[in-house]
């Protein structure tokens, strides 16, 4: 009987212990997304040339996105088979392509607004919901995934209307690799092309 009660108490005790830490993580994540959202929108709708805006956005991305964690996720199982030189080149190109994809169309987002919702703790990260409104567009539900696995909490995924950015990117790379003999060098060459072509 005593054993049973102890068994029942154990998870409760664990939950109590995990409780405050979890709540902290949720608050931190929510604050991070809220601050980043304000700053992003400030840059997009603010004064300045497209080049200035792109530079400002790049800074924010570097500060709040765990780019190397995302890069690693997107390479999937090939992370283990690639050489250190390839991983280095891949990491740099991944960042360049990501920044380019996000910042190149900054003019299209003029007038954007964002409402940040409540954070929600998941197994290993926190999901922060938001609604992004663009003029002449239906409101978009965008969820931000914040993880502290790499030290300070940073964004590791953006889920727009249920579509995860990193999951989609990973299937793009894995399909490309499987059609190119699983050769990571071919992927790196293709990414270099992406990073250098005008767009």
């Amino acid at each position, binding site marked *: 009987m005593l054993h049973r009660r102890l068994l029942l108490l154990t998870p409760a005790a664990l939950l109590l212990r995990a409780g405050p830490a979890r709540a902290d993580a949720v608050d931190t994540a929510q604050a991070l997304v809220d601050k980043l959202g304000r700053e992003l929108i400030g840059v997009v709708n603010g004064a300045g040339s497209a080049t200035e805006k792109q530079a400002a956005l790049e800074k924010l991305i570097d500060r709040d996105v765990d780019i190397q964690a995302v890069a690693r996720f997107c390479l999937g199982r090939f992370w283990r088979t690639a050489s250190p030189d390839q991983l280095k080149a891949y990491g740099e190109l991944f960042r360049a392509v990501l920044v380019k994809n996000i910042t190149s169309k900054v003019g299209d987002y003029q007038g954007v607004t964002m409402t940040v919702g409540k954070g929600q703790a998941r197994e290993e990260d926190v999901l922060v919901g938001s609604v992004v409104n663009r003029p*002449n567009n239906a409101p978009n*539900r965008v969820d931000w995934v914040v993880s502290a696995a790499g030290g300070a909490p940073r964004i590791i995924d953006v889920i727009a209307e*249920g*579509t995860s950015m990193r999951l989609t990117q990973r299937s793009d*790379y*894995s399909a490309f690799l499987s059609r190119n003999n699983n050769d990571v060098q071919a992927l790196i060459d293709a990414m270099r092309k992406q990073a250098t072509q005008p767009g």
Partner: protein
Amino acid sequence: MGEQDLIHLEVAYCRMHADMNEMSDQTRFPDPALAPYDIALVPVRGRISWLRVPMRLSVRPLATALAALCLALGGCAMPPPADDPDAVAEYKETNDPLEPTNRVFYAVNDALDTVILRPIALGYRAVLPSPVRTGVHNVLNNLGTPVTLANDLMQGNSRRAGDTMSRFLLNTTLGIGGLIDVAAERGIPDHPADFGMTLAVWGVGDGVFLFLPVLGPTNPRDAVGFGMDSFVLDPWGWVGHGNTVRNLRYGRTALSAVDARAMVLDDFDKVKAQALDPYATIRSLARQYRTKQIDDARNDVTPQAVKKTP
């Protein structure tokens, strides 16, 4: 191509996919009375009835046709060797055994889109101002009310069905025949409901990935759902006869296509410009988007609803 050839093709197809372990019924069941049967929804004298249909007549010709098509268009994706567990896991996750065939259809669709639908959508967006396009979209949406309502109800989602009803009443009257989405402004946003989702809520899995002409990225369940929505549940298909009604119907279908294409012009251009493998990217996006729609229907999440910061 005779029936014998098709059987040969089918057998060849089955050998390629030993795991599917399919054989022609003629070999397994010499007596047709003993052949297995499916339950199918079949129209009988204008009504839909459940009928016993011999599997030979329902699934098999479809499978055979698919096999023939598959072989003609470059075959099926070969499963990776079993000693590469990562590759096997990926193959299962992708669930796209018809990939080579799907890619052919993707290329055909993409070519047609580039020369026909995309230019029309671009023109539509260039010529008509945004409020007019929104109005057209709203009217088309309002016309889809019966299908949405039927599916809400079949999904057992009375709250969503109530939303659909309120939206229809408000938008048809105050919204001038559906032109203005006054319901959304009053806090009753639009939500999707189709028969593919209904089947999913009933527990039907999506099955393999399909890229079909016209329909684009889909799966057997949603393709069946599309047929059900378009040809059975849509009352605009039941009423009226004559050329005018037929032309109105064609007009609505064409306008729906242009409206839908115009909505995704920028997103689609972006995918094609930024993806190394647009087909795989679209496959992934389409699946994730659909999964989310179905989860939302199951959990009755209102689209665009977020909990406000306290």
